[in-house]
């Protein structure tokens, strides 16, 4: 078997593409474009089909249900996992660690897509699958026979790479669910933000 040729450096053209990919995937990661549900479903189904073919699982054609936000999706996932509509707050909270964070995972997918598109190597279809997922999917939960999907956010407000908004949610979903945050710190309400701003105001300190 022929020994693989080792790529030990990038060409100038390939290096020039790095900032292009960085910006492309930064935009994918922070996308607030409306979610195309059929494309999102196709992306997840493609992952299931690929992994089912290459592995031993029988999960190949899951049913897909949608929730209007990750907050509602977490509840639905908890209910489905338990097989009971009655779930505790703790059971919902536990879903955070079991979710797939779709578009927010764009940064690492950038590496595989860069390799697949820019370097003279053997291609892996799964890189395309991952690209489809981060491009089209919001947060989702995977079961053997069901996937709970949610849309991408409709608003992301940031300052210095941290969630930040003083007059509304910093992260918001199309149904109005979201969270308040100032300098990356989560706040319970606009009132809390206003009080904190007033306390920090130089005029208040006089």
């Amino acid at each position, binding site marked *: 078997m022929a020994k*693989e040729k*080792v*790529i030990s*450096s*990038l060409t100038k053209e390939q*290096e020039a593409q*790095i900032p292009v990919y*960085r*910006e492309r995937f*930064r935009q994918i*990661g922070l996308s607030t474009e409306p979610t195309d549900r059929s494309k999102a479903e196709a992306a997840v189904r493609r*992952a*299931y089909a690929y*992994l089912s073919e*290459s*592995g031993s699982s029988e*999960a190949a054609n*899951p049913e897909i249900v949608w929730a209007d936000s*990750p907050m*509602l999706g977490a509840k639905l996932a908890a209910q489905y*996992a338990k*097989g009971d509509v009655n779930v505790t*707050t703790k059971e*919902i*909270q536990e879903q*955070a*660690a*079991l*979710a*797939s*964070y779709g*578009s*927010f*995972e*764009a940064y*690492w997918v*950038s590496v595989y897509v*860069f*390799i697949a598109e820019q*370097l003279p*190597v*053997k291609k*892996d279809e*799964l890189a395309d*699958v*991952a690209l489809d*997922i*981060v491009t089209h999917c919001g947060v*989702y*939960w*995977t*079961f053997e*026979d*069901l996937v709970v999907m949610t849309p991408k*956010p409709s608003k*992301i407000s*940031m300052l210095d*790479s*941290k969630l930040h908004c003083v007059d509304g949610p910093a*992260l918001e979903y199309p149904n109005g669910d979201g969270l308040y945050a100032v300098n990356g710190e989560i706040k319970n309400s606009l009132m809390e933000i206003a009080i904190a701003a007033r306390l920090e105001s130089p005029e208040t300190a006089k």
Partner: protein
Amino acid sequence: MRKRYLRGNIYGVRRVLYDNSLKLGLAAQIIDILPRDMGLLAYHPYERPADAVKTSLINFMQRIYNQY
């Protein structure tokens, strides 16, 4: 309890992608440049804000209020 399909989540995809890259000899082909150029592409702070959003969302969901 319904059975979760963790292999089918995005982190399962990531693991298989990595495994495949080993099988394809991809890692061997590019390993020399990974720490340098690929590292810049993957971990430069400039394109990690979405990761910061994810962290905030996880923190929020882990203390989700009773209305959900």
